[in-house]
């Protein structure tokens, strides 16, 4: 039986983690192809809605990554982001999101190896959670099931 291949939406800030992914490419550091990257100027741009939206649309996992605290290209963007993440992460796990579905990291543009490690780790964690059934929209699919 083939193993479950999760679909993961990743949100990277342009200046650090997106750069780390670029560098991982330059360095040919391979990692699983399970995620799709949405490039943001800053993790501060990440509206918590986007995370919920990704789950609602059926993402099995979400990965958010930006500059280390203090390294923000926009001075304090990721400090504000971090507070939002603290609340959202706590909230979602408190109401029953499986730990491992929603992942956060700080990866600087020089940390290609950390990028590779975290990428692998995120995919494995999400894989272990299994398909996202509980946080996806059903109404539409219920309707579709009648015509498909």
């Amino acid at each position, binding site marked *: 039986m083939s193993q479950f291949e999760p679909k993961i939406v990743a949100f990277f800030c342009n200046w650090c983690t997106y750069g780390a*992914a670029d560098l991982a490419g330059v360095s*040919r550091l391979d990692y699983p192809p399970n995620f*799709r990257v949405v490039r943001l100027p800053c993790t501060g741009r990440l509206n918590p809605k986007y995370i919920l939206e990704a789950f609602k*649309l059926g993402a099995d996992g979400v990965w958010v990554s930006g500059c280390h605290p203090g390294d923000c290209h*926009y*001075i304090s963007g990721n400090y504000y982001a971090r507070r939002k993440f603290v609340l959202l992460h706590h909230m979602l796990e408190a109401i029953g999101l499986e730990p491992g579905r929603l992942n956060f990291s700080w990866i600087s543009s020089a940390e290609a190896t950390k990028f590779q490690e975290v990428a692998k780790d995120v995919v494995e964690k999400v894989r272990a959670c299994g398909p996202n059934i509980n946080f996806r929209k059903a109404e539409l699919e219920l309707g579709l099931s009648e015509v498909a």
Partner: protein
Amino acid sequence: MASNKVVGAVLVAGGGVAGMQAALDLANAGYYVYMVEKSMAIGGRMSQLDKTFPTNDCSMCIISPKLVEVGRHINIELLTLTDILDIQGQEGDFQVKVRRNPRYIDMSKCIACGECTKKCPVKVDNDYNESLDKRKAVYVQYAQAVPLKFGIDAQKCLMLTKGKCGSCQKVCPAKAVDYEQKAEEITLGVGAVILAPGFTPYKPKDFETYRYADNPNVMTALEFERLLGATGPSMGHVVRSSDHKEPESIAFLQCVGSRDVNRADNGYCSSVCCMYAIKEAIIAKEHAKYDLKVTVFYMDIRSFGKDFERYYEKAKEKGINFVRSRIHTVQPKQDGGVRLHYVTDHGQSATQDFDMAVLSHGLVITGETLDMSYKFGLKTDQYHFAQTTSFAPVALSRPGIYACGVYTGPKDIPSSVMEASAAAAAASSKLASARGTLTKVVNVPAPVDISGEPPRVGVFICHCGINIAGVIDVPKVVEFAKTLPFVEYASNTMFACSQDNQEQMVRLIKEKRLNRIVVSACSPRTHEPLFMETLAAAGLNKYLFEMANIRNHDSWVHAADPAEATRKAMDMTEMAVAKAALLVPLTENVIDVAPSALVIGGGVAGLNTALTLSDQGFKSVVVEKDAHLGGIANRIHSTAKNEVVADYLEQLKAKVEADQNISVVLGAEVEKVEGFVGNFETTLTTGEAVKHGVTIIATGAKESKPTEYLYGQNPKVVTHLEFDEKIKAKDEAVAAAGTFAFIQCVGSREPERMYCSKVCCTHTVHTAVHLKKNNPEARVFVLYRDMRTYAQKEDIYKEARDLGVIFIRYELESKPKVTAAGEVLNVLVHDPVSGRDILINPDYLVLAAAIVSGREHELAMKYKVPLDGDGWFFEAHQKLRPVDFATDGMFMAGICHYPKPMDEVVAQAQAAAARAVTVLTQPRMTVGGIVAEINQAKCSSCGVCVAVCPFSAIGIDPEKGKAVVNEAMCKGCGVCASSCRSDAPSLRGFTNAGLFAQIAAAL
């Protein structure tokens, strides 16, 4: 033969952080810049660093935007692999002869795919990694290098040395390898030259004591830095070179090749080693997943910069052990480790074993740099640093040639950056008449109006030779792209970035009336600007562009799974198309800039800023709250270089008075502030309203009033400034006195004021020398905690000791006790070396009272700029933007930023002026593009966006009661857009709709 010709170009030699900053400031101020770099890429030493102190910022992350900016600047011509041969002419009109050495790779063709490196059979020590690992003979200096072009090491290449191999030429998909390239000499006409050649780290090879040469587990700090680096030889994993085992303990040995006239002949302090050692110690402990023991062996910890002392304290809290001692012998151990022999603080011999030792080696001037100084007629000091004065800290002995960075003395990054801006200001001070004469502007056709048109997306999918197509089924992605909504045209291309493809794209955009463009190729971080220019050239608004990074994020990392990689490329293209279809043209607007400055503070910093601005032809108003100019410098006798401050001040004031561009308002302060960059309007307490384009805060600081050591109770106890005033006044009692004592760190480096006042140690030894020279019989005692005579100031410390000044160290826990018995002042101090208490009866007890900030909260609020916890004005970035505020158009200079000596104050003042000129030089500023906007119908005026904006770019419109974005200040981070509960702010280019479309397309 003097000519009056003034050339509006400047040559900057050295592409390190200092050279880059100078080049950017000049280019942004209307001068054409030749940036000459010896190696294949710019970036300098900073590109080798893992982190930077005291913020632990990732070094590469913070310089790479600067690298890219320099690399892409239309008015900076980057000459890599280039040497300067000769400088002829004089200030205003130099002819600089340079030699451009061959790279053997055609830069216009190289796509940096790395195929050549893969195939190259030659392995060479990798200098970027301090020879800890190997690179190939054809290589790129480092992954983020600018220009991102490969080059061939002519000394090692088999083809170039032996005429055989040629494999790189065979595999290069872009046909970029050219073994026939030859060196060429060219002459550049420039008005001024800035030299920023930097340093080389001291090589402890000959220093047998440290066993560096024969024990691989004794490394230099720069090697260790590379070991810590994520791109280093062990990818940040701290292991010993000998056995790749994780060390259990590491010793840092300070002052290797510094403060050492015996072996190294380097009497100076290298200024940065204490801090980088602390940093490396902290990072090493963080990297180790176990309890790594780190000990730093030091003579004095010199954490004198902004936030350095706290960093040192934090290191102690983290368990890093600090031992005051100089290691005299390093003995190798069987297990590969070292046994250190040293004498303790209390005079006892001791040994300790470590698995590794790191030598904190100093910064030295290379022979090559020294040769250059001689050749170009530039005076140097005994340590080969270029000579400058305190009042003209970036001007070299030959007019028209300026310096910045370590060339003039050891210093850290922010000081180098400050000097770089200062050098830009100084270098252009005589060139103002030629500003804008040699600079280029880009002319683009007016964009076509696409309003009302449905999206017509053009998709270009790049093969990147075999880089993408070797893994991804590109034709399949093209066919898929054609099925996506709004896609009008899709095709594949061998190299999307090639000149012919750009032309093809322009043609297709026009022919097929494409109004959105998607390129699936490499990283937007490197290539987006290029394609945006292509759109502009085709008459399309450049923001109607989106990229899918199917190379770096796909083919290069999923080579093992072509099917999944292809699927991913399809998804990524779909995401890009989905977002692109929702893009709208973004407009850029121009706003007028008032070409003048308001300088707040009429001290040395403020006046120098105003004068430097005047050199560039800009008017300024200097507001001074006192009734006279000069500030705190009025009370200082002389500088560390023995320059008399009063004479200097007199000249300075006279120059300011005579200057038509400067008007001074005395006895006034800022009452009210309106406006923003380019258009400030400040009302002074005198009622005068000033319109200005930029603001420079130079409000200075104060000497604190000590609350201990009988200060204020006994007339013999005085502060530094009070004592200086006596010296200035040639006080007879001082001249007659026989015994002097100085107590250092009075009110500094204490829990409630955890910073070093930076100037006191130097000022004390300088004064002590003065006293000794005036009266060799005088007995002078200095009671100190760590002597912080950094850089060449160490010489004064040595001179003081040579003259017989007695230095006694004390601990914070056992401060000297000062009592008075009648006329007699008793100073009792415990000497840790002898273990005895020493009683001194000085005629004068001089206290190095802490320098304290003015805590200018009100001023800060008015200009929406921040103060740090100690009340110092808080710069935009501690390393790379030391004179800028995060708020555009706001700058700072002098000791309102942090205590510093006169030369650094002057440098910072010139730097502030240089930074200000980059704003003032354009009569109009372009604003807009990717900035936030507010949908006022959705705004509740709750103020969240105002509070979170890092750049104070959002305010509440008092009339409408709704938030408004000041496009001139917005940097496009989007924090407002994600913080607003009702989605009133939107970040253009990264709208909710666009991002939702991407998310949906991803799934």
